[in-house]
């Protein structure tokens, strides 16, 4: 058939029975049209068909008329001839991972065609109607970009007016320098995983996973491949046995992070052969000539199972008679206490203090299995490269750590594995796990051909890990002046089917509960249990939102009991200079007062507004939540980068600051510019080579708010070396040519280690005393919420975040993390969930926030004080923004309508049920205390009576003697 695509008539050959419009344009190479959900709920495939916006992924080609006019992102502007919308997107922080960008830009193009002078609300209404989802930003930057582009299109501003201009004084740091990857992203020219697949050599085989999705827990009796193997085009059905045959263990590496962990042997198989431990487990891979053939054959694999009792929550798994999900270890497999003040003498004294206190509050809370909901799913390519290495193109939070996780599972030595990041449509943490990489790599190794594996969104959703759900019980007390005296708490975290990092995440709740207040006496415990639900993995703010779910609710509840305003109550209890956190150590910084003073006018105004606008139909309230997070992975963190002087006197920076949309590219550029400031370089003179383990040294993971801090530190070291080498006696710098003539090396390594910071230590596994981070980041959140009393629906209408992340490196990148974190927080509070595997199959049913779910009115205030340890005074700018924002929303709901939500998400049904009780004059009964495996004080006593040797700063030292000599 013929279509007029981007202005030209083009002939295409297609299968009208199967092909969608997206299939067709993508096959033509127009891969700017992205397919995310493939269900028409995310909007990333939006194109204009005969002047109308359509979702190309669901538009059957058979329903498209011959010679229809199709406009895709490629038709809107090109790198050398950008459309104002594209310029605005690049320059106003609207590009993060960039996966949704083509859809948004096309959608904006249609909007501005209709109305070139829209209000912000018009823009928001438009994207709500077109259902364009962005998961990285808070939508605010997108509206900013539309408004700016409209201004240019109306002739009220020029392209230059909305573009970043290089400063003449060389002071780039902190400025909104445009991300290097933005240009390709706004033009639809960034090749994400699926785009790579389309562009691979013709002999590439396609891989489809056999994910039975029949049970959460079952014995596999028989897997029958015979029919599948006979299907057309099938090259091989890869099973666990094939992995064993190529010398692999089929077992993925898992960590052992905690002295109290009872899991020693990894349980996670690449391909399951004897048991299914969770719904998303995979038993085989079908490799075929085409994806359709592979899919058809995968459907023919018969998996015979015998169901086993499934434990889908911590509460089930921790019952005394629950069977061990993994035979070798008990379900509750690790715990970490925290004791302070009288708690260190005798834990139960804390309870006695609370019993006798003037005021106390108690409650039991639950936070959900929050899904990451990146719009791009999971697509991986694998082949043997020119050096005979297994090369895998993928999405990875840590290209080197992925190699570690593959471990010996595939029987290929570590130095023969090369991981390369594709342009990546966000992750927020799920790609810290290399399970997907193992699948594609196993197929490539077994069939010895290049392969491509692209999961459906649903497959990916069930396969990838989630945030760990958490039950908690807590009590907190204060004196008559509202000063906190003691707190006790216990957490029960649901690790899901595989122990992956579960014994690490328990150290977060016992650090961030009641952060950053000063409480003199504490008795707390965090426990983690295996269940049969999806496994817990990294997610921005890792392990801390679970803590704030308890502590920031209790702070409000106690303030109410003491008759003190929540702001004032917090003001009285924030830690002041020298006061200690619950780990009995000083905070690394004390910005708390300054932050509260900045927040005060916003709070007072919001309270006034809420009172003024509160109506019986639409209740309105204000909520606060303090929060924060650590920076770096702790005392043993390190990062390495290279800097090289090029023949044209530009600089190449090599690192693995993985760019997942958070700004690995721009972050790396900013620190390089700043570190090499004496060379007076412009951004264009720095070339980044990133995240390919063949060329780049290990800069560590893009996680733990560590990248800027660690990579910045390493860049400073490398830059000093390079500049020292370039420096002539007269203080000027040698050119490349001069360096060559004098035989001076032109490439330098910088390695930064947190060990240089004084006083770092891991948490003591017996007391929770310790100081595992060289810097903290802080965020004080305020949410304004309305509650519709008819439906129970809560809406966040305004949000203020005052933060301390040290000096801002790139304002757009930091804002991007802030807006993004806040939007995830709001989603976490109100809608997001992954619990019912039959319902929560895509981003929409899992509760992803659309534009109208996120307020346009978000205010960010960065304190921006110089951090003593961080590179250029910056610390880390990510996780603090998602740590506790959800509790500002939950507290605001209570403030608005008197309904306290103990178990998030705060769906409209839950709020409505509460409103109905209150309306009937009843009292909302809070959840009863959860049984988390045993009595808190029994466990604390037991731990006290049975201390484990403290393993020192190394994670991997179960032999456990701190003074044992370190060899490496």
């Amino acid at each position, binding site marked *: 058939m013929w279509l007029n695509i981007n202005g030209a008539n083009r002939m295409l050959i297609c299968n009208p029975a199967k092909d969608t419009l997206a299939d067709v344009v993508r096959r033509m190479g127009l891969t700017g049209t992205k397919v995310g959900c493939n269900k028409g709920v995310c909007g990333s495939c939006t194109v204009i068909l005969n002047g109308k916006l359509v979702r190309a992924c669901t538009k059957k080609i058979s329903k498209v008329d011959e010679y229809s006019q199709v406009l895709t992102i490629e038709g809107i502007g090109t790198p050398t001839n950008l459309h104002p919308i594209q310029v605005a997107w690049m320059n106003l922080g609207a590009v993060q991972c960039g996966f949704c960008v083509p859809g948004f830009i096309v959608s904006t193009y249609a909007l501005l065609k209709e109305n070139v002078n829209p209000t912000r609300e018009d823009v928001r209404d438009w994207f709500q109607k077109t259902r364009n989802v962005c998961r990285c930003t808070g939508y605010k930057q997108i509206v900013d970009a539309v408004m700016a582009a409209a201004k240019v299109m109306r002739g009220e501003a020029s392209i230059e007016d909305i573009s970043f201009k290089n400063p003449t004084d060389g002071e780039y740091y902190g400025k909104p320098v445009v991300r290097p990857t933005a240009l390709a992203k706004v033009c639809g020219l960034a090749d994400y995983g699926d785009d790579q697949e389309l562009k691979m050599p013709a002999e590439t085989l396609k891989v489809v996973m056999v994910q039975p999705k029949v049970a959460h827990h079952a014995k596999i009796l028989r897997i029958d491949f015979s029919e599948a193997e006979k299907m057309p085009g099938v090259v091989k059905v890869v099973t666990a046995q094939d992995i064993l045959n190529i010398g692999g*263990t089929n*077992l*993925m*590496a*898992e*960590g*052992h*992070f905690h002295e109290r962990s009872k899991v*020693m*042997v*990894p349980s996670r198989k690449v391909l399951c052969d004897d048991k299914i431990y969770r719904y998303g487990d995979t038993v085989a891979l079908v490799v075929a000539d085409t994806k359709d053939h592979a899919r058809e054959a995968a459907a023919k694999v018969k998996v015979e199972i*015998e*169901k*086993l*009792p*499934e434990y889908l*929550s911590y*509460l*089930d798994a921790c*019952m*005394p*008679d629950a069977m061990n999900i993994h035979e*070798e270890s008990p379900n509750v497999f690790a715990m970490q206490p925290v004791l302070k003040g009288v708690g260190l003498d005798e834990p139960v004294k804390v309870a006695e203090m609370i019993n006798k206190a003037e005021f106390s509050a108690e409650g*039991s809370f639950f936070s959900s299995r929050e899904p990451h909901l990146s719009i791009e799913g999971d697509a991986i390519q694998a082949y043997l490269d020119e050096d005979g290495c297994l090369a895998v193109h993928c999405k990875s939070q840590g290209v080197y*750590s992925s*190699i*570690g*996780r593959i*471990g*010996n599972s595939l029987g290929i030595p*570590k130095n023969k594995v090369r991981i390369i990041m594709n342009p990546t449509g966000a992750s927020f943490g799920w790609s810290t796990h290399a399970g997907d990489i193992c699948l594609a790599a196993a197929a490539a190794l077994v069939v010895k051909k290049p392969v491509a594996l692209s999961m459906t969104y649903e497959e990916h959703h069930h396969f990838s890990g989630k945030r760990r759900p958490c039950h908690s019980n807590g009590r907190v007390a204060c004196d008559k002046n509202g000063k906190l005296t003691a707190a006790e708490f216990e957490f029960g975290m649901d690790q899901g089917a595989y122990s992956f*990092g579960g014994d690490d995440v328990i150290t977060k709740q016992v650090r961030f509960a009641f952060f950053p207040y000063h409480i003199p006496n504490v008795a707390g415990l965090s426990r983690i249990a295996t269940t049969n639900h999806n496994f817990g993995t990294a997610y921005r703010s890792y392990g801390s939102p679970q803590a704030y779910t308890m502590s920031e609710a209790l702070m409000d509840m106690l303030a109410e009991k003491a008759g003190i305003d929540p702001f004032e109550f917090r003001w009285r209890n924030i830690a002041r200079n020298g006061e200690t956190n619950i780990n009995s150590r000083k905070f690394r910084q004390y910005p708390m007062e300054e932050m509260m003073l900045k927040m005060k006018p916003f709070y007072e105004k919001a309270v006034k507004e809420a009172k003024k606008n509160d109506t019986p139909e639409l209740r309105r309230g204000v909520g606060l939540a303090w929060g924060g997070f650590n920076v770096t992975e702790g005392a043993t963190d390190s990062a390495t980068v290279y800097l090289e002087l090029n023949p044209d006197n530009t600089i190449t920076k090599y690192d693995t600051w993985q760019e997942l949309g958070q700004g690995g590219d721009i972050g790396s550029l900013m620190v390089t510019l700043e570190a090499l400031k004496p060379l007076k370089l412009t951004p264009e003179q720095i070339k980044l080579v990133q995240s390919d383990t063949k060329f780049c040294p290990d800069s560590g993971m893009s996680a733990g708010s560590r990248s800027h801090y660690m990579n910045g530190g390493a860049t400073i070291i490398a830059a000093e070396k390079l500049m020292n080498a370039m420096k002539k006696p007269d203080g000027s710098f040698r050119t490349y040519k001069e360096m060559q003539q004098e035989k001076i090396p032109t490439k330098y390594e910088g390695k930064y280690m947190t060990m240089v910071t004084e006083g770092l230590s891991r948490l003591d596994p017996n007391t929770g005393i310790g100081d595992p981070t060289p810097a903290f980041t802080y965020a004080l959140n305020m949410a304004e919420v309305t509650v519709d009393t008819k439906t129970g629906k809560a809406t966040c209408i305004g949000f203020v975040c005052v933060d301390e992340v040290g000096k801002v490196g790139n304002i757009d990148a930091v804002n991007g993390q802030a807006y993004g974190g806040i939007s995830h927080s709001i989603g976490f509070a109100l809608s997001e969930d992954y619990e019912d595997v039959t319902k929560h199959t895509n981003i929409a049913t899992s509760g992803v926030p659309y534009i109208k779910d996120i307020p346009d009115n978000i205010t960010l205030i960065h304190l921006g004080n110089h951090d003593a340890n961080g590179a250029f005074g910056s610390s880390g700018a990510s996780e603090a923004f998602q740590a506790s924002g959800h509790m500002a929303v939950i507290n605001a709901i209570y403030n608005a309508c008197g309904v306290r939500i103990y178990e998030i998400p705060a769906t409209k049904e839950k709020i409505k049920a509460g409103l109905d009780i209150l309306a009937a004059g009843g009292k909302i009964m809070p*959840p*009863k*205390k*959860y*049984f988390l495996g*045993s*009595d808190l004080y*029994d466990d604390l*006593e*037991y731990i006290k*009576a049975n201390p484990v040797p403290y393993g020192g700063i190394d*994670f*991997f*030292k*179960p*032999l*456990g*003697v701190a*003074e*044992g*000599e370190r*060899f*490496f």
Partner: protein
Amino acid sequence: MELANGLVAECLQNEPAFCSVECPFNLDVRDFIGKVQQGRLSVAYKTFQYAVGFPGIVTALCGEPCKQVCAMKDSGGAISMQLLEKASVDFARNKDPEQYNMPPKDKKIAIIGAGISGLACALRLTTKKYNVTVFEKSDCIGGHLYKLLSPELFLKDIERQFKYERYTLNFNTDISDIGNLEYDAFYVATGKGGNDLGAASGKDGVFMGGSLTGADTMYAIAQGLNTAAAIEKYVKTGIMTRPEGPSGTKLLREGLQIISCNTVLPANGNAFTKDEALAEAKRCLKCACNACIRYSPLMNYFRKFPKRIAEEVEVTIKPMTLDGNGTVATRLISTCNHCGLCKEVCPKNIDVGEFLLQSHRTMHDQGAMPWAFHEFYLRDMDFSNHEAALARLPRGYDKSRYVFFPGCQLGASDPQYVIKSYQFLIERFPDTALMLSCCGAPAHWAGDEAIHDKALAQIKTDFIKLGNPKAIFACSTCKQMFQRYLPEIESDFLYNVMAAKGIVPARKFKEKIVSVFDPCTSRYESDLHKTIREMAIGAGFHLEPLPMEGNLAQCCSYGGQVAITYPPYADNLVKTGIEQNNNPYITYCANCRDIFAAAGKQTWHILDILFDLGDENRVSPTVSERRYNRLRLKHQVIKEFWKETSIMKNPGKELFISQELKKKLNKELIIESDIYTVIENCEQSGRKLFDPEAGTFSGHIQIGNMTYWVEYRVKQDFGIELINAYGHRMKIEET
């Protein structure tokens, strides 16, 4: 897990105690008693409560079948479990059950019969928030308990256990057919002679239990609880399984350490006070197999059973840690002394040491073992086998019947040990050859099979050269190594030969009380044990046995050369070794002698006594002196026995080292000859830095994998004064 399969399969660590198997409720008695022993009666109560459902009723009616199998039965009386259970009930802080806040389940379960078995089933199911309905044909709950207990007692217990749980109870409802009842599962517990409602014929979803099946009261309750679990599995999976009974235990009574102790009787005749309960609980052995933890210094130090060790080793050899470096058990693998005690004390003879050796080899093959762990001693072995080596027939012989193989450490300790012994031998057997070299143990311990094979090949060549003589060993490690790797070579111990030839100790002691410390490699050499003791008695000593001697011999810490790998462990081992009693020791291993003496223990080598050499306080030589002694020995024997001139290479300039610095160098295993090499290199190459202020030079070179730094002063005419020296495990990239 192929490497570890045997270990884990055979180990009895997780076998249940005898009593738990007999208990109708399979109460984890070890866990329960452990809590009582710690005085944590409230926690013990919770364990008991969950296991039995109705603690009040069970303590009243328990027939204590556990007493029949109690290991203390004939050693003061079986543990009074019933009284301890009662004590846990009496002294619990809070007798109420736990509140389980769980989401309600949508499955409906019917229980026919409100006797205690049906109620037990109801209790467990309601705890998990199943929707339970109980049908009772009479107008009261409790069934046959009315015949056994006062209603006040059992009704109160039942009420308490159901305090937080709800179920529907229908009295006066005689169910004769369940066909028309809409439930997901049934538990039929209609009592003795009751209607089984088809359950006996195996109807899906219909379970039966209690007195109906002939069970006594205790088993009736247990069946109710266990059937609840079976019902839960059934409603979750659709699979019907009968609750399983206890499967017995493989635990062996032989492994237990029983100390007789009389049972505690309650002073008031019927119930323990708290103190009485604790005293009675402390009698309990918590029967478990833990001989390895009790005896093996390694497993005791790390508190790790074979299974855990196997797991840690497994993930180390096949890296499965997140950083992929698999360092979990690297140190553990290298910390084994290979003394064989673990195998000796294990009732299943599990040989963890051999497992660790194999693992060590695997790690070595993978290049994953830190070279630093063994490099020093491999270099030392190389020294013994080259510069200090010798293999000679006595003058005038072209073959020999015997060869004296003193091993590398005897002469290192004191050359006179070797010289005097050889003198003794050659006087009795004039054709006795002498071989100074190493048996290969350091390479064996390092898991380095290539180096080991080379050493063994050299030994074989030398033996052929000497006419395949019988070896006479002074060191039990040498003998052990030969038996394992060169079994074709016949051998005996020097001391046995001496005894047979009627040696008379040159030195006499009057009634001095000492203990013989057997080297670990002499574990199975009972003749040798006897010989040494007779020699000691012959010298006038009075002997007191050590707790760990003969086949329980412990390593002095030298075995496996673990002191580099893990200094705190080695120190601990030395400490436990010398603190077995306060007597001076006599030993017959140069390493035991020198290590203990260095730690301040008066220790003789048996040769000290036989030839009147050093005394029990002789200062142990430093690592440098040990090397020097070996070299000295070689030259001396050549002079003395072969009457040849042999000149030791004279270092160019004399090196002055303070005592303080010598101690430091010894501790850090820095050999003076290496220092010399560095200084020579500095002086010859001129690659040295001068510090004009201190007037000292400094420089470094790499030897093996180590980089040695020295700081020294050249004294006019007086040689060189060493100011400081240290070694780094690093390489310097020279640019």
